[in-house]
């Protein structure tokens, strides 16, 4: 009954190209969607978020797209850099009394030189 799913456990992209990470969700009541980046032996760090009332949010090389009808969001990284190699977690949030992030299982992104 996972409400947030990342179906690609890993992704390999050449440096300079676009990386596209995908995420699907089942609960249409989520208010926000977030992407976190995680390096080995470190905790997740916040990367970018999008409100459920928007369909795009951009921050530098990172853009998140939200398709509510498909219950799908994606993170685009362009151009990809070696330092982007990490595990990326998609998360969803419903603000109802208390914040409770629901995470996907992560996608390991490897940027090849």
């Amino acid at each position, binding site marked *: 009954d996972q409400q947030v799913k990342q179906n690609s456990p890993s992704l390999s992209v050449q440096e300079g190209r676009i990386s596209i990470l995908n995420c699907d969700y089942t609960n249409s009541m989520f208010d926000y969607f977030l992407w976190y980046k995680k390096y080995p032996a470190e*905790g997740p760090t916040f990367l970018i978020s999008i409100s459920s009332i928007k369909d795009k949010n951009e921050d530098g090389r990172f853009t998140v797209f939200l398709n509510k009808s498909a219950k799908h969001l994606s993170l685009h990284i362009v151009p990809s850099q070696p330092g982007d190699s990490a595990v990326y977690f998609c998360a969803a949030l419903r603000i109802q009394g208390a914040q409770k992030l629901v995470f996907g299982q992560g996608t390991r992104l490897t940027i090849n030189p």
Partner: protein
Amino acid sequence: DTAVSQTPKYLVTQMGNDKSIKCEQNLGHDTMYWYKQDSKKFLKIMFSYNNKELIINETVPNRFSPKSPDKAHLNLHINSLELGDSAVYFCASTADRTNTEAFFGQGTRLTVV
């Protein structure tokens, strides 16, 4: 000057023992959380405290007891450890209970043998 710090980073212990994981945040945040990353890599919320008050308590065995002596600290005590408790536990904090950006600690890898 770590924002959210957890100790210990690694913990190996025998079944049946009682252990604690400590968490401290120096961000002045009101809300703190414990998440568990299981063997399938999903990060799942366990508890949340807001200003020392328990606000989220997911379906977690009674052997797990969080304690918040003040709003900068949220410790996790686990009694009668079982093999299935082996996981990585992450502490996190947000400015308040509805804030979207969570700051995570580096994680505590618990191994029960």
